[in-house]
């Protein structure tokens, strides 16, 4: 039997402490330990993108991250996206009807946020390529892509000089 481990991380901007077993994935602890059920489990093996969260700003499938790996890290889930009002991505998804059943939506929103943080003005092909690891089985992808590009425009109009995130090499 493995020992339980105490983990401290920043989740959606707030310090959080939790106890988990090393074998538990971040997805499992977010949903079952912390009640953050916005992040969805699809395939559970990294193929579908439904469980995407930002880990230190990087989009990752939380089903392939151990919860213990979150120690000292910064995590953003879909619950942390809206600040008072809906995030422009969420608003655009609503207006474009970019969802039906909604299971894939949190993963798309978080992956799309990572794209727009890195590249505020993606071409359609860039957005399609970036999101190709997120599966939707209801709507098709056109509405999702339209929503992402629309949200990118809204975000740029809020901040006309967005800074590209620096990725040192």
């Amino acid at each position, binding site marked *: 039997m493995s020992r339980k481990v105490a983990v401290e991380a920043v989740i959606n901007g707030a310090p959080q402490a939790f106890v988990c077993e090393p074998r538990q994935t971040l997805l499992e602890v977010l949903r079952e330990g912390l009640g953050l059920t916005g992040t969805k489990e699809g395939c559970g093996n*990294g193929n579908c993108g439904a469980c995407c969260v930002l880990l230190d700003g990087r989009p*990752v499938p939380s089903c*392939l991250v*151990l919860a213990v790996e979150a120690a000292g890290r910064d995590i953003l889930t879909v619950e942390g996206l809206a600040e008072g009002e809906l995030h422009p991505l969420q608003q655009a998804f609503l207006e474009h009807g970019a969802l039906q059943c909604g299971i894939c939506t949190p993963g798309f929103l978080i*992956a799309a946020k*990572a794209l727009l943080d890195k590249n505020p003005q993606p071409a359609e092909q860039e957005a399609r390529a970036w999101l*190709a690891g997120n599966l939707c089985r209801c709507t098709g992808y056109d509405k999702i892509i339209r929503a992402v590009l629309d949200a990118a425009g809204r975000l740029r109009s809020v901040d006309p000089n967005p800074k590209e995130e620096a990725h040192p090499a």
Partner: protein
Amino acid sequence: MDPFDYAAPSSLDEAIRLLAEADGAARPLAGGTDLIPQLSEGRRRARLVVDVKNIPELRQLRFHPAEGLTIGAAVTCAELAESPVVRQLYPAVADACSLIGSVLIQHRASLGGNLANAAPSADGVPPLIVHRAAVRIAGPDGVREMPVEDVCVGPGMTALAPGELIVAFRISPPPEATSSCYVRFTPRQEMDIAVAGAAAAVTVDPSTGLCRTAVIALSAVAPTPVRAPEAEAYLAGKPLTDPHLEAAARLAVRSAQPISDVRASADYRRHLVTVVTRRALLGARNRLAADGRHGTSPGAAGPKEGLSGVAEGGR
């Protein structure tokens, strides 16, 4: 998942000690994109998982004009695909790193993990081979280096001894007028596994434009990644014209020993070897041409003719 303990050592010595003490029951964890599904599906077992991402040697990414590039084993594919040096001087490596899995996977997966997992279809390995990368391996008996080409010995099997850990890759600065490219064929663009893949690195004589050396490595068409020596030898001393690239691509088939499986028949894989080899050679040649004569910044141009690194059959 069966229970296991977890350690995240901050030094290489400590990691080696933990791996040795576990006597074969420990697994190193980098991105976990292979290990975690293997553990959760019971395909591998571990009593201890050793997270290697806090070890500085495994997280380094640095370039020295004389010594070349050092890639820590746990550096993510996304970091490599974004690196200007990797894109410019070792573009086949950047190609593979932007093809593996999906964007989400690329933000976890590492080349160290890709090599250790030793899948015949590993996209990350042929580009390292064509750039003649060496791998630094640490273990209870110290540190050793070997060519990446010699690491895979069979599907899922490597030349690493129990308790050994891949620390970093070392690639010399490429010779002048060198470029490279990696191309694979997959039915879909993301989250798919190469049916066949090829990496090519070509070096030309800047004064004559003739090929000095060509190095070609194939994926998913043999039990391990393999070189294509007959194709390489054919190109030496020749101009990199389309007919010569085509002829070399046909010779590359002689180095393939493909199987028939759910993804493709052996015959189809042999056909694909000619396709992906030709495209990889074209990509490398066109990057050189786009760069002018100096071979210092081919990365930005990328392969021409719609060769995004994803075979056009996937469109």
